[in-house]
C-alpha cells in the first residue's frame, strides 16, 4: 500500500533553515518505520541521514518523533498507526539537530557520566561472586532494560526548562546503582541526587514512562530515589 512520508530535512552545509520533504513509499503493514526510511534512502533519496543499527529495539540508535510521538523507528510497524498511512518523521525533540534526523547526543551522555554509572565498593571482592538477594536484583531489574535511546529525556518537560536537570535516563542509572546491594556508595550517591537538578527535579509528569520503548517504570524509579533519600535522612536523624 502507498504511504506518504513527510520527513524533516536539515543540512547545515546547504541552508540554515530546516524543511520538510515528502516521499511516497510502497509499504507492507508489517514493515517497520525504519524499513520505510531505508526504502526512501535506497530507492529514492540517498541523501537522507538517520542513525540505526540493530533494527530490533536493543541498540537504541533510532529514537525519532513519529507522528508527533517519540518512538523507535525499528520498533513501530506501519500497521501500528491509525493515521491513514500518513507519516511525519522528525528528529528527537530537545536535542540539537546535526543533520536531518541525526541529533547531538553528547549532552545526554555527559549527564549519564555524572551519576558515576559504575559499581563502587569499598569491600574487596570475594573469591567467587558477591551473594545478592534475588529480591534485590529484581528490585532494580526493570532499570536494566534501558538502551540509552534518549526518548525519555527528550520527552521530559522539566528538561526543556532546566538544562541542568539530569533527566530521567541518568536518574534511572543512578537508581540502578543506588539500589544494587553490592554498591557501598549509596550515601554519597543519594546526596548527589538530593537536589532540584537531581531526583527532586522530577515532578512526576510521567511523560518519560509514557514514551519509554522498553516500558521501564522511570517515574517510579525516580520516586524510589526520593524515598531512599528520605529514609537516609531519617536514619541519619535517628542516629545523631
Amino acid at each position: 500500500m502507498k504511504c506518504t512520508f513527510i520527513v524533516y530535512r536539515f543540512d547545515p552545509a546547504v541552508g540554515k533553515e530546516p524543511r520538510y520533504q515528502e516521499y511516497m513509499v510502497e509499504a507492507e503493514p508489517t514493515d517497520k518505520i525504519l524499513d520505510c526510511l531505508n526504502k526512501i534512502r535506497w530507492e529514492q533519496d540517498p541523501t537522507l541521514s538517520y542513525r540505526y543499527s540493530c533494527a530490533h529495539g536493543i541498540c537504541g540508535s533510532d529514537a525519532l518523533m513519529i507522528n508527533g510521538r517519540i518512538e523507535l523507528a525499528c520498533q513501530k510497524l506501519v500497521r501500528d498507526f491509525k493515521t491513514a498511512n500518513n507519516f511525519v518523521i522528525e528528529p528527537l525533540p530537545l536535542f540539537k539537530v546535526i543533520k536531518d534526523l541525526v541529533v547531538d547526543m553528547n549532552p545526554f551522555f555527559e549527564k549519564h557520566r555524572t551519576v558515576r554509572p559504575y559499581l563502587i565498593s569499598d569491600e574487596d571482592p570475594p573469591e567467587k561472586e558477591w551473594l545478592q538477594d534475588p529480591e534485590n536484583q529484581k528490585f532494580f531489574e526493570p532499570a536494566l532494560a534501558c538502551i540509552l535511546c534518549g526518548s525519555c529525556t527528550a520527552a521530559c518537560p522539566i528538561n526543556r526548562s532546566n538544562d541542568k536537570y539530569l533527566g530521567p535516563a541518568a536518574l534511572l542509572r543512578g537508581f540502578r546503582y543506588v539500589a544494587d546491594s553490592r554498591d557501598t556508595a549509596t550515601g554519597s550517591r543519594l546526596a548527589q541526587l538530593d537536589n532540584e537538578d537531581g531526583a527532586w527535579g522530577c515532578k512526576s509528569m510521567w511523560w518519560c514512562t509514557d514514551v519509554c520503548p522498553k516500558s521501564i517504570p522511570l517515574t517510579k524509579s525516580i520516586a524510589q530515589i526520593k524515598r531512599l533519600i528520605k529514609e537516609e535522612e531519617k536514619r541519619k536523624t535517628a542516629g545523631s
Partner: protein
Amino acid sequence: MKHQFDVIIVGAGLAGLRAAIELGEDTSVAVLSKVFATRSHSGAAQGGIGAALGNEEEDNWEWHMFDTVKGSDYLGDQDAIEILARDAPRTIYELEHLGVPFNRTPEGKIAQRAFGGHTRNFGEALVKRACFAADRTGRVILDTLWEKCLQGGIRFFDEFQLMSLIVSEGQCHGVIVYELASGKLHTLHSKAVLLATGGYGKVYKTTSNAFASTGDGLAIAFRAGAPLEDMEFVQFHPTGIYKLGILISEAARGEGGVLRNNEGKRFMELYAPVIKDLAPRDMVSRCILEEVRAGRGIDGKDYVHLDLTHLGEEVLNTKLAEITGFARTYSGVEPITEPIPVQPTCHYMMGGIAADADGKVITDSEGTPFPGLYAAGECACVSVHGANRLGCNSLLDTLVFGRRAGKEMRRYIHTVGFSPLPANPEKEAAAKIATLMESNGNETGGPIREELQEVMMDKVSVFRNRSGLTEALEKVRELKGRYQKIAIQDKGNCFNRDLLDAIELDYMLDLAEVITLGALAREESRGAHSREDFPDRDDQKWLVHTMFRYSKEEGPQVFFKPVTITRFQPKERKY
C-alpha cells in the same frame, strides 16, 4: 588530523572494551567505533554466557571443554578451547565484581540455565551452565564494560569508520579513519592495533545481525596481508522470527520451549534423542529445514513453531522478557498463548582473521605473527568454535580473548617504539573516497547489496552443493565488477550514509567471495558447513583449517593449517 596512542582498538563491543579495560589507565589507548559504543552488536546477545560454576548442579570445565570441542565438530583448536573453558569461571566472577547484574539463585549465587549442546559428564544429559541477566545478557555486560571505561577515562572515537591499516615493512602502526560527522580523515598512529569489529551477518538476506555487521575489519586486514581462516563456517541460528530473522534466544528452549512441525509434533526428539531441542544450532537448523522439505513446515511454508505456551506468564515476562516483546511487536503473536513462527537466521561467523590465543594475528600455517596487529571477538578465528559455535560461548570468547589480547599488547608496546609514519598515510583512503564520490558510473549500491544477500542466502547458507556454490561465486564476482561502477549521489560531508553504505558493500563483497570459495573447497560436511554432494565428515582429508590469503592479481589463495588436538580424539557426533 593526526593523533598518537600506544594502542588503537577498533570496535567497542565486548572484545574491544574488555581489552581496553585490561590496558587500563597507564596505557594511552583509544577505542574507535563506527556506531556509538553502546550501539555495538554485542548488546544484542540475549541468552547467556557459559561457565562451569556449578551453582545449580555439578559441573566442571573439562565437560565444558569437551562440549565445545564436540560442538565444533572437532575443528576447534583444543589448546585454545581449554583456555576458554578453564578461564570461564574467573571471567564470570570478574564481570560480577564489575557490577554485571546477573540473575540469582534463591541463595544469592549467580543463576544458571540450560543451553544448546552444554552437557554433564561428556554428553550424558543437559547441564545448567549459562549465566544470564534475563534475556539481555549481552546488553548489560556491554553497558557495564562501557561504564567501566568511562570511569577509567578511556578515550572514545564514536562514529568513526575504519578506512585502512597503516602497514609498512609488514608491521602495523595505526589506522586511517573517516569521521562521520565531518567527512574528515584522521590518522591514528600507534604501536599496536586491535581489530574487534565483530561479525558480518549482513552478507546474508535473513540475519539476526545489525546493519553495522559488515565485516569491515576483516576485509581491511585481509587486503593488508592477514589471512582469513575457516570462513565457510557460517552459523544459522534455528530460531529467527519468520521472514525477519530477529533472534529468539536459545534461552527460550533452555527454559523448556520446544519446536513443533505442522503436525504439532516435537520433531527434535527424533533427531537428537538425548538433548532434543537443545541440540547444537547447526543440527537444529538442518532439522527444521528437513522438516520443511518433508512438507511438515507450518501451512506448507518454510517455517516451524517455537512453542513456549507451557512455560507460563511468569517465566516469559521475567526470564524471557525481551524475546516475548519481540514476538509481540514483530510477529503479532502472543507467546503466552500462541507459538512463535521461526526459521533459521544467519547469526554468527565462526571464521575470521587468523589469530592465536593471545590475540596476535598470524600470517601463515606456522603461526608467524603480523607485528603490531591483533584481533579478538567474532572478527577473529582463534579457533575456539571450529565448524560450529555453541550458544553462550561467543560472549565468553570476546571476554577471555579480549583480555588476553589486552595483556599481550601491554607487553608488546613496551618492547617497541613508535615507527615513523609512511609519507602521506591517508593517500589510499582519500583516493578511495574521491573515486566513489566523483564516479559517474551507472550503478547504485542498493541493488548490488540486495542481489548479494539473496544469492548468499539461496546458495551458500545451511545446505550447499557444488553447482549452487559455483553459481554463487560467479554472481559475487559479477557484482564485484558492477561495484566498480557505482556512484554516490550524496555529495555531502556530514553523516553521508550513501558513502558509508558503499564502503561497507565493498567489504561485504570480498568476504562473500571468500566464504563461497571456502565452501567450494571443503568437500565434506562438518558442523555448519553441510554439502549435499559430500554428506559425510572426512577427517582423513579435511580435519584442517581453511586459510585464504589476499592476492590482488590472482584473487584469494587457499592454504591449510593443522588442527590442534590435545584431549579429545574426533568421534562421531551424536546427541
